[in-house]
Each structure stands twice: as C-alpha cells, then as structure tokens.
C-alpha cells in the first residue's frame, strides 16, 4: 500500500492484484482496447430515462469498482484506489429508426475505442433507446477493473434500483467493499503466506509431472508443422501467437429446451455444468487430433466463493491449464467425474498467480516464446439477471456482448445463459488470421454432437462417441 496526494486529499492506493496483472501483461502484446468489454442490456418496455439515469448514478455510487482509478508512481508502477464520489453525467443515445444490425455495429465501434487508464474512469455507461421497442444501457468497462460477474452484478443492480423506484420493489442489499477484497488478495500474495506456499508446491508438482500434449482446435496441422520446422519430431507444445490481433465474436444460440436437457443431466448426475462443457470440449479436441487421449484446455476460475468475493465487484478471474488423459474405454460420465475432481483440485489452488505459473512452466519446459499446450480457453458463466434471489418483475430482456476487435489468444469460448429463456449462448471470440467464422460453426456443430451423444447415454464410452460423431 502506498499513499498518494490526489486533488489535495491523501489517498491509500493498493498494488494491482494477480488477476489485474494478468490483464496488464496482455496489453504489453496487444492494442489497448484488448481489455474493453462492451455489453448491452435492454428491456422490452417504455423506460423513464430520468429514473434510469438516477438508478445508474446510484449503482455507480454503490459499486466500488465502477469508481476505481489507477495512478502511477515515479517508477511507473501502477496502483489503484477508489474515489468516494463520481459525479459524471450518464450519456444517452437514441437508436430508434436504426436497424438492429446497424445499432449492433455502432456499439461494437464504441467498444473498439480504448479507455483512458490513468486517473480516469475506466468505464462508460450510456442509456440506450434500442430498436424494436427495447430500452436499456450500454456498458463498457476495462477488464482490469471488472469481469463478467461484476458486469452482471452491476447491470442487475441498475435494474433492481430502477424497479424499486418504478414498481416499489424492495431496495437491493448493500454491496461489499472492493478494497477489503483487494487487501485479502494482496495478503495471500505474500511469499510467506502458508496458503501461497501450499499452492506453489501444488503447481510445481503439476509443472514437473509428465509433459502434456498440444491439441489444436483446427487439427494437428499446427503442431506437425512446428515439429517439422524445429526438427524435433517429439515436440509437444506449439507456438500459438500470430501476426495480427484482430478478432471477431461468433455467437451460437442453443435453444432453451436442449439447454435444459444439459442442465437436467447435471442435476441428475450431481456434476457441474462446467465439467460437462469441459468434457465436451476436450472430446472434440480429441476428435480433431486423431483421437488424442491427452488433451489440455485453459479453464477459468471466477474465484467468487465468499460473500465478500461475490459482491465486491472487481476482476477476479484466473486461468489455469486443465489436463485430461482419458482412455477410449472410459464412459462419458466417468470422464466428467474425472474432470470434476481435477477442477476441484484446481479450485483449491486457484489463488495462485497464473502469470507466475505460466512463466515457471515455460522456463521448466524451455518453451519457445509464445508456446503453449492449450489452444482454447473455456469460461462458463452461470450468472444471469434472473438469479433466484433477484427481486425483479418478469420483463422481456435482450443482452449482448460486443467485440472489442482484438484478442490476445487464438480462441476464447464463453458459455453463458440467456436471461430470456435460460438457453445457452456459445460465444467464440477468435483471431481472424487463425480461424474463420465457418470453422467456428464446424467446431460448435461437433461440440453439440459430443454433448448430446454423451448425455443421451452416459454409459457410452469415449471411443464410441468419437466414432459416432
């Protein structure tokens, strides 16, 4: 912690946490807007924009990480602090008369525009009159200040405050302190912290175990080429960096009914949706790589266990490699349970700094710069605006995630629930020079085939499923 005098007031400023440094590391290699997240939340009804504006202002006042600021010291080290008041104006844009696709394109352009990082608000809120009788808000945030859980919590809060004013619904519960959560994270990072020492030992044992195998989402071509070029026929990692960072998002909508079947399967078999999705994804990668048994992906850990972590906003996501070695004789459900146990192991050591882990792994394995064993990152976002504790009337919603136009990794898959029907959206964010929209469609098609072949008979073996699809 360090004190800075800002506008005549002495402020306590805190170093960035590991989750924030993960993003900070990303911007070294990408355009500044790579950390922009643009979202839209629109409700199908007339909205009183004066009341909505007041609700947004109150939500900003309640939500510490919307008032987060960064400051640099004389050495260039970045610190963070929360300003007590944020009196900014909330913008308004009228898309009446626009087509929905033109409105979408315009807000995607907004999302491409970088946000200032130092001594400035790292978010933007605009009230929107959306085509088709929908109204709501566009929100752009810097990923170093908020992640998808925070964004959903903020949007939910705006709606709850609005509904409390318009429909006399109960006021939302108070939120938790962002700074308190940061202090806990920084306490963990002390090298002599027993949990930190324990986690370091765990990840060291993972790194120094047998070597994983790279499996690309387009097939074995990338690894085979790099084996040939390096003259190393046993190469098991591949360089995944590419010439450009230009990215796009392809979104595929799984309807409510089949999505419900996946959820029911998880409930009946007491397995998590994340484990089912990971099982599906690793099986597709296996299929695309000559039925490879050893498949690794990057998995996201939201790190929101305690109520403090759940309701303090901020950015908390850590990414870790998840390795699966599954035999063709193992059944689909055995595979899911193996993955769930592996995920549980990762959860217990998820506070460890993922950048430090990557650097240690790269050093131990003598990686070529940019090399990895994982071609895809998977995030499952279970939160929606329709959480059971949310006090809101039954309103028809639309939600969107807008591309920032840049990606630091080849493929980032986010699976999230649609608030309108609880169906699943599969958001594939991909680098345009590495893969095309039609290849994403191909991947999604096989992904669904694996998932539904697996859940219709959980005793099917992995080998049988690989043959069937």
């Amino acid at each position, binding site marked *: 912690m360090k004190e800075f005098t800002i506008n005549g007031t002495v402020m306590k400023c805190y170093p960035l946490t590991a989750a924030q440094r993960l993003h900070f590391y990303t911007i070294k290699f990408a355009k500044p807007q790579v950390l922009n997240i643009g979202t839209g939340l629109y409700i199908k009804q007339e909205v009183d924009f004066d009341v909505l504006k007041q609700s947004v202002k109150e939500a900003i006042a309640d939500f510490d990480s919307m008032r987060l600021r960064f400051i640099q010291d004389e050495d260039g080290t970045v610190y963070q602090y929360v300003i007590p008041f944020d009196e900014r104006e909330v913008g308004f844009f009228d898309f009446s008369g626009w087509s929905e696709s033109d409105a979408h394109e315009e807000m995607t352009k907004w999302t491409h525009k970088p946000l200032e990082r130092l001594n400035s608000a790292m978010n933007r809120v605009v009230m929107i009159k959306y085509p088709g009788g929908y109204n709501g808000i566009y929100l752009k945030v810097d990923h170093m200040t908020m992640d998808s859980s925070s964004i959903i919590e903020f949007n939910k809060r705006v709606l709850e405050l609005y509904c409390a004013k318009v429909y006399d619904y109960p006021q939302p519960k108070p939120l938790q302190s962002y700074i308190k959560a940061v202090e806990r994270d920084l306490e963990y990072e002390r090298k002599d912290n027993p949990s930190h020492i324990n986690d370091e030992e765990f990840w060291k044992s993972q790194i120094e175990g047998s070597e994983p195998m790279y499996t690309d989402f387009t097939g074995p071509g990338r690894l085979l080429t790099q084996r040939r070029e390096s003259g190393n026929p046993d190469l098991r990692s591949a360089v995944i960096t590419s010439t450009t960072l230009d990215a796009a998002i392809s979104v595929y909508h799984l309807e409510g009914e089949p999505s419900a079947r996946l959820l029911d399967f998880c409930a009946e078999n007491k397995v*998590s949706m994340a484990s089912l999705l990971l099982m599906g994804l690793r099986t597709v990668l296996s299929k695309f790589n000559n039925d490879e048994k050893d498949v690794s992906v990057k998995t996201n850990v939201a790190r*929101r266990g305690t109520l403090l972590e759940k309701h303090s906003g901020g950015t908390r996501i850590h990414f870790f490699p998840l390795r699966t070695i599954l035999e063709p004789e193992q059944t689909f459900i055995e595979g899911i349970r193996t993955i769930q146990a592996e995920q549980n192991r990762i959860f217990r050591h998820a506070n460890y700094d993922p950048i430090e882990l990557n650097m240690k792994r790269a050093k131990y394995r003598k990686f070529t710069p940019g090399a990895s064993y994982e071609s895809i990152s998977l995030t499952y976002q279970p939160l929606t605006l329709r959480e059971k504790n949310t006090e809101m009337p039954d309103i028809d919603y639309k939600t969107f995630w807008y591309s920032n136009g840049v990606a630091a990794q080849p493929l980032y898959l986010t699976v999230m629930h649609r608030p309108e029907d609880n169906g699943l959206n599969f958001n594939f964010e991909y680098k345009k020079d590495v893969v095309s929209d039609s290849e994403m469609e191909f991947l999604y098609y096989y992904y669904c085939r694996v998932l539904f072949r697996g859940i219709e008979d959980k005793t099917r073996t992995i080998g049988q499923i690989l043959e069937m699809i």
Partner: protein
Amino acid sequence: MLEELKEMMCNYIEAAPETITPESEFINDLGFNSFDFMCLLGEIEEKYGIHVNEEEIIGLSTVKDAMDYIEKLKKA
C-alpha cells in the same frame, strides 16, 4: 460441529444459520457451487487439521454427509 459448520457456511451463502439443518443439501437447498464448496472445505481442513480427498468429496450431498466425513477423517 453443526454450529461451527453453519458459521463457516454463512460466509459463502446468503442463508440464516437457523435455516441450515443436517439434512440441507449443499447445492439444491443452500445454493453452493463447486468452487464455494471447495473453498469451504479448505476452511474445514484448517479448522479440524484434516486433509480431504477431491474424489471422495464428490459424493457429499448434505451437511450430515460432510459432518460424517469430517468425523471419519478426524478419527483416522
């Protein structure tokens, strides 16, 4: 042990301690997810000086299951 567990659980879920019973199911009744549950187990390990096994805990559904499992590990 139940009271101690209730106190720990209420750091993770929005439930009044008096509503938690031995029969309460972690996922269906209390709203735990896998990550919450693993964090809770970390606290339990520290408090009772035990070490849980990730494969074994997949079968723990209710608070009573967890209490029995902890007792077993404490005796081992």
